């Protein structure tokens, strides 16, 4: 062997974070909007987890002597609603319910959509079937599905999440399918096949890890969609049942008193908007951070 030794910079400390991930983190830290999104989400998650501790009252506790207290009233920082329920307590628990719906719905979309997307993108024979199936799902009116589910199984948080999750499956399939389609034609997959790799190996070891950033981005976009969707369902009485609060039910209840007590609508409305915005900002930043080419 007379080949020249290639001069290489010193190898990174093997104990450290893999450089790829470290670079992604560095890029993420440089995005102020991403950090803002992350901060809002962290506060929201923390607040909803600690709701039982943080909330001054039970969300359902009524104060008949103190309806429509304006925000800032002693004892009711964000005011009370028509039944004298503490808006702050209801927001904390409502946030918890909304986040639960969002995460459950997207988890369902992931569990069903990712394998189907992989299969559709990888196996030509399955593609036609799965793609027609997604077309069919996209054509099916989502509200009809939600009404149907509520009629059969009764309205609840879980069923709202189920309906929302199902409606997000086609989008997930499409994202994963197109990534798989791109990746399976790359040479590293071919090299692996030459060595006798099985399809499961190729999908699990090469395709899925490389498709992951697209999946993460799709998920962070889908969660706020589900949260807004839950508001719509609860507003229509198809989601969480009173007296349990969710951001959507609070908004629905507030509408009749919006003129008298605008804060009862504004506070949950703002919460929905903030959480959705935070997810979108964080998702965008995450997508950029995970793409090595995005380093300017």
């Amino acid at each position, binding site marked *: *062997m*007379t*080949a*020249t*030794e*290639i001069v*290489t910079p010193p*190898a*990174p400390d*093997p104990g450290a974070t*893999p*450089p*790829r991930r470290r670079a992604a983190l560095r890029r993420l830290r440089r995005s102020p909007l991403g950090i803002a999104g992350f901060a809002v989400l962290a506060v929201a998650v923390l607040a909803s987890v600690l709701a039982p501790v943080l909330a001054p009252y039970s969300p359902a506790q009524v104060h008949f002597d103190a309806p429509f207290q304006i925000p800032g009233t002693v004892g009711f920082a964000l005011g009370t609603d028509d039944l004298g329920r503490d808006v702050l307590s209801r927001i904390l628990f409502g946030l918890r319910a909304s986040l639960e719906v969002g995460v459950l719905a997207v988890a369902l979309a992931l569990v069903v959509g990712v394998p189907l997307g992989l299969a559709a993108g990888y196996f030509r024979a399955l593609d036609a079937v799965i793609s027609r199936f997604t077309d069919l799902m996209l054509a099916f009116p989502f509200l009809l599905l939600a009404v149907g589910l509520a009629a059969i199984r009764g309205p609840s948080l879980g069923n709202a999440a189920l309906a929302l999750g199902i409606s997000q499956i086609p989008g997930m399939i499409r994202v994963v399918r197109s990534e798989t389609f791109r990746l399976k034609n*790359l*040479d*590293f997959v*071919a*090299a*692996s*096949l*030459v*060595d*006798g*790799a*099985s399809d499961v*190996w190729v999908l699990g*070891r*090469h395709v899925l*890890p*490389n498709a992951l950033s697209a999946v993460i981005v799709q998920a962070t976009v889908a969660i706020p969609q589900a949260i807004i969707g839950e508001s719509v369902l609860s507003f229509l009485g198809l989601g969480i049942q009173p007296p349990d609060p969710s951001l959507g039910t609070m908004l629905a209840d507030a509408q009749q008193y919006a003129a008298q007590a605008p804060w009862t609508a504004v506070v949950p409305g703002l919460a929905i908007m903030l959480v959705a915005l935070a997810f979108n900002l964080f998702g965008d930043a995450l997508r950029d951070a995970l793409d*090595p080419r995005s380093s300017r």
Partner: protein
Amino acid sequence: MHFGPVRAVDGVSLRIERGRVLALVGESGSGKSTVGRCVVRLLAPTSGTVRLAGTDVTHLSRRALRPHRREVSIVFQDPASSLDPRLSVGDIVGEPLRLLGLASSRRERETRVGDALEQVGLRRQVAQRYPHEMSGGQRQRVSIARALVSSPRLLVADEPTSALDVSVQASVLNLLADLQRDLGFACLFITHDLSAVEYLADEVAVMYLGTLVEQGSREAVFDSPSHPYTQALLSAAPLANPREQRARRRVLLSGEIPSPTAPPPGCRFHTRCPVAVERCRTEVPLLRTTALGQVACHLVADDGSGPDVRQQQPVPVGEG
């Protein structure tokens, strides 16, 4: 527009002896890569056979093919897409060992990966790094290490240096030549660059539009090319020497390579051949053995003599 099966490669027969290097040369659309992919069984040929050390592997099932997988490896052109960006170099080079069950323990695998990396002129520690941290030349070395870690008997190298800079290309060509000499594997070297193969190849086969037009020893093909296309190809590649390059007469082929979806009748090269006669437009020339090698051209006699298009009048510029 015509859709339908494209006959990318038609009636190509190649034979690579143990430990020899066969260069398969052609331009875009010649089908050279398709041949390479059939050899490593990424594609199954519509008809014909691929035999590895006597065993017909053309129609073996995946399972039956497994014992033969370790005999053949492939190196691709683009080091950017031939290495999985999510895996470390160690995982990439170690993959064939895992897939083929060639290392009994993780430790043994790591040792063999380290050995393979050193063999291609990289340091063992490179195993912990990721492809995007490396230069194009280093990545191509990783690709070669991956291909050779299973000690294959045949290496298919599909344009392994075409995406690299000149000086890096030189070191990769040198490396391949050294490894081939030291390890003795046979090599199918697929390229569009005739100058790269003169340096490496024992035998040369030239393809045009899916068919083999000429095949022979390196000396025969380079010193006395018989087929007009081989002659044109040799004269078109510019020499890095201004005096020689400007003094020599080059063949300007008219037009461009026709679409493989509708190859011309007769000799597929006749639409661009400066010496084509009526017979070339109708009758398909067969690959015949001549004194100099094998050639598919009506105009070449059995002793290998025939027209040399490099002696023809150059086509005036502007009508190309």
